């Protein structure tokens, strides 16, 4: 009996020990839990740990610069006439021993074509210029920089030994035919035989279930469970000598669990959608060897108004509400002041500051309205719109009381706190407000169907391209009279769709934004258009930008040496996976 007990205890201790990470294992905690996984990049359950660690991207954007990239699998690239020539790392190999060649990249591009990848809107054709070189021919009228952005940001090559059999001559013909037609007539392209052919191939490809990934990155898969991907260094990587961390444990957890892992010392690093509430920030900052950065981010959250309901159809009322929302207080109470997850936008212009600073001048920015909290300004504007204040409550010109029903996705717990502050403040100045939280899976549909008065929208932006950011806002075609899917033609979210935009005149807002995002590259025209839309957002208040998210990056120097917090890498590299690889290659990240 005692012997059996001892054996059981030994077994458990062995298993416990097996699960503890050694000091040489970098534990990354990510707030993206997964239930299912598939080593198929054309499914929605492709593990987030794969990008960068198992599969190399061609290059990484030096955010927020639109024209600067750090090479990875693409060792270099050059422009020759209308061609972009991309050279692949000469010694890059797949984990099955085969070399990475131009065929891999070309096949991958065609498969991305079946997936609707934006890079095909930029190119007319693709061909091999050598064993390790690929030539992409630019479509007429498309700026080269847009191709670079879509190629380097969106494309990760996969091995032809796995995927090449799906790249048939008919797929190639369909990709070219569909995109040629889409460039001139998107509606005709959508109903074309070529598009049906692409859909058929995609459906076939989406059902492929490889048993294990065959990557070309510095790590290969050791194992995967519902909350951990275990990666081990692959010695066949072309720059393996620079990789000093032998193992990576990539955890996929709910956000509170990420913080718990960091605080308990189990995790060494977290970035991306890390959210540390102010109380956790305090605890983390008092933890030994703990560091926290708050890098200005790419996303923003907005308060949106139901554009089909009075009084939100009145610009003056929207402006009054912009003054009545205590933006600074909302941000401070929800996210705090120390290395916060989100910060107060000083100028609601529809852009995050890093993007705005690149494309707008200081004089332009200073001429925009800040909408600092000012109840008296709100009073003036409401009065000028015919509203009356009686016994401390506002009444509309039709005699009904002005009440606001605020809605928010229940899953955005941090923003719920901010909106609670808004509701109480608005009520205190005579605009009776209530806050309702709505289930995550229902929220988007509620917004599209117009089942709201005032709601929060998250998250717009995500790009260093200002026109893409405006197109991804509630004014863009995905939300504003959507053209596809269950919400086709609905106008719950959005603005217009026609409106008088400064500098552009009366235009169809979603269509114009789409055309500009897909057709205008960096330069004076992009700056002019950015200024037009910034003025429009600031003056017309189609939505109220109420917070700018920051990338909270937490790391511990207990087991690893990291780049200094002042290192530009933290700003430029927008992905934790890529940062871990590039910093090892730079020699600034290694085990102690």
């Amino acid at each position, binding site marked *: 009996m005692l012997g059996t007990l001892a054996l059981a205890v030994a077994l458990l201790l062995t298993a416990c020990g097996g699960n503890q990470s050694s000091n040489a294992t970098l534990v990354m905690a990510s707030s993206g839990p997964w239930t299912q996984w598939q080593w198929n990049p054309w499914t929605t359950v492709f593990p987030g740990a794969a990008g960068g660690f198992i599969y190399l991207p061609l290059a990484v954007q030096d955010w927020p610069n639109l024209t600067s990239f750090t090479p990875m699998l693409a060792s270099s690239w050059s422009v020759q006439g209308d061609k972009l020539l991309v050279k692949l790392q000469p010694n890059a190999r797949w984990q099955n021993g085969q070399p990475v060649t131009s065929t891999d990249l070309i096949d991958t591009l065609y498969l991305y074509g079946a997936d609707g990848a934006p890079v095909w809107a930029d190119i007319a054709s693709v061909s091999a210029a050598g064993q390790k070189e690929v030539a992409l021919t630019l479509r007429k009228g498309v700026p080269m920089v847009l191709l670079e952005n879509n190629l380097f940001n969106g494309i990760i090559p996969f091995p032809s030994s796995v995927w090449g059999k799906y790249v048939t001559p008919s797929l190639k013909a369909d990709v070219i035919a569909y995109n040629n037609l889409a460039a001139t007539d998107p509606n005709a392209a959508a109903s074309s035989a070529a598009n049906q052919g692409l859909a058929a191939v995609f459906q076939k490809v989406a059902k492929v279930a490889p048993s294990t990934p065959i990557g070309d990155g510095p790590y290969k898969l050791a194992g995967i469970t519902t909350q951990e991907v275990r990666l081990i260094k692959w010695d066949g990587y072309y720059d393996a000598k620079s990789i000093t961390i032998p193992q990576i444990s990539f955890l996929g957890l709910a956000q509170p669990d990420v913080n718990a892992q960091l605080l308990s010392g189990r995790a060494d690093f977290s970035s991306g959608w890390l959210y540390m509430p102010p109380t956790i920030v305090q605890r983390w900052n008092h933890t030994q060897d703990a560091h926290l950065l708050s890098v200005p981010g790419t996303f923003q959250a907005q308060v949106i108004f139901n554009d089909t309901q009075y009084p939100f159809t009145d610009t003056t009322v929207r402006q009054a509400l912009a003054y009545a929302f205590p933006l600074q207080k909302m941000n401070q109470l929800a996210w705090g002041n120390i290395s916060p997850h989100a910060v107060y936008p000083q100028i609601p212009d529809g852009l995050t500051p890093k993007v705005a600073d690149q494309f707008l001048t200081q004089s332009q920015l200073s001429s925009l309205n800040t909408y600092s909290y000012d109840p008296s300004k709100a009073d003036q504007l409401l009065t000028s719109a015919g509203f009356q204040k009686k016994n401390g409550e506002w009444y509309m010109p039709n005699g009904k009381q002005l009440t606001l029903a605020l809605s928010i996705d229940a899953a955005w717990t941090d923003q719920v706190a901010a909106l609670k502050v808004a509701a109480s403040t608005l009520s205190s100045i005579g605009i009776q407000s209530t806050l309702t939280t709505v289930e995550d899976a229902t929220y988007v549909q509620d917004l599209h169907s117009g089942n709201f008065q005032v709601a929060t929208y998250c998250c717009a932006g995500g790009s260093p391209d200002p026109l893409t950011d405006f197109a991804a806002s509630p004014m863009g075609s995905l*939300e504003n009279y959507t053209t596809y899917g269950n919400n086709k033609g609905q106008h719950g979210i959005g603005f217009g769709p026609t409106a008088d935009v400064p500098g552009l005149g009366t235009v169809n807002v979603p269509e114009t934004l789409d055309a500009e995002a897909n057709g205008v590259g960096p330069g004076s025209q992009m700056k002019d258009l950015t200024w037009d839309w910034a003025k429009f957002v600031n003056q017309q208040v189609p939505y109220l930008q109420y917070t700018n998210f920051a990338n909270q990056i937490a790391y511990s120097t207990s087991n690893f040496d990291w780049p200094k917090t002042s290192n530009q890498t933290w700003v430029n590299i927008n992905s934790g996976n890529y940062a871990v690889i590039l910093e090892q290659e730079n020699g600034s990240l290694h085990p102690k």
Partner: protein
Amino acid sequence: MISYIVRRVVMAAVIIYVVVTLSFFMVRLMPGNPMDYLESQLERQGNLTPQQVEEKVHAIYGLLPNEPVWKQYLQYMAQAAQGNLGTSLNDPGQTVVHIIAGALPWTIFSVGVALIVSFVIGIAVGTVMAAFQDRQLTKVATLFVSFISAIPNYLVAIVLIYLLADTYRVFPTGGAYAADVNPGANLPFIGSVLVHAIMPIASYSIVGFGGWALQMKGSAVSTLGSEYVRAAEARGLGARRITQTYVGRNSMLPQVTLLALSLGFMFGGSVFIETYFNYPGIGYQLINAVNSRDYSVMMGCFVLITVSVVISNLLVDLVYPLVDPRIVSPAGRRSRPGARAGAEEQNVPVGGTVA
């Protein structure tokens, strides 16, 4: 007897059909859909124009069924009758049957072990409490057990995670096994599975045993007061024989029935614990399918839960007549000479006779 069995089987089949039908339509009436879910995920990834998001959603959900719902229903029922529950919407490379087959062993293992552990401990504690019901310690124990049984098991899970995983790191925080072991018949994998299962099993068992203990205590106290026990005492039978044969077995009978019924509910009752521990069982798959509106996987889980509950009830119905033949022909029981009103509520002595 045969007509009794046929009636029960037909009723079970009808219940399954009705519940599956209702589930099918209710799932599709749920607000939200997988396209909206994916759309919001892609928007959060950023760097995509609305057209790009639309195209990706279209490419992925070109796989969505777009026939009228009634056609989908007929198709689903025809396929389900052949054991084909479709493919996951989020992962078209996986059939629902495959996903369920992968999740099923984890739930059966963790909930099954927890059920047995809590049952055995609960019966033992309940018996002791009944045997020594007048003692002060029993009163304290009853209060404690009542308190424990009233706590939701997910609260116990949170406390265990906080204490034993985060603070003291005795156990891993979640998963069914460590990522660095090879799944298969090897010692590290088995050890890892056991270690990862301890906290989920403890969460179920800590709460579960209280209920069993209270039920056992109630049942045993009731049996102790039965006429046939008093008669056995009067006949001079030994205390050991009375306790084991008359009291123990008769008190256990309703508990065994409840245990059989509990087996049917094991899949539906695992949602919270499996979610907190990222334990890849049926409850975990179900809650994630609901959140992402993966209709196929949701339906698969609902079918499994329904069928397991109905079949466990059916099995109890079929086994009970062997224990109590009166169930098959209640009319005969009523016409038995000397039968008293309310006699059917008495426990039948196993290994003894009604004196």
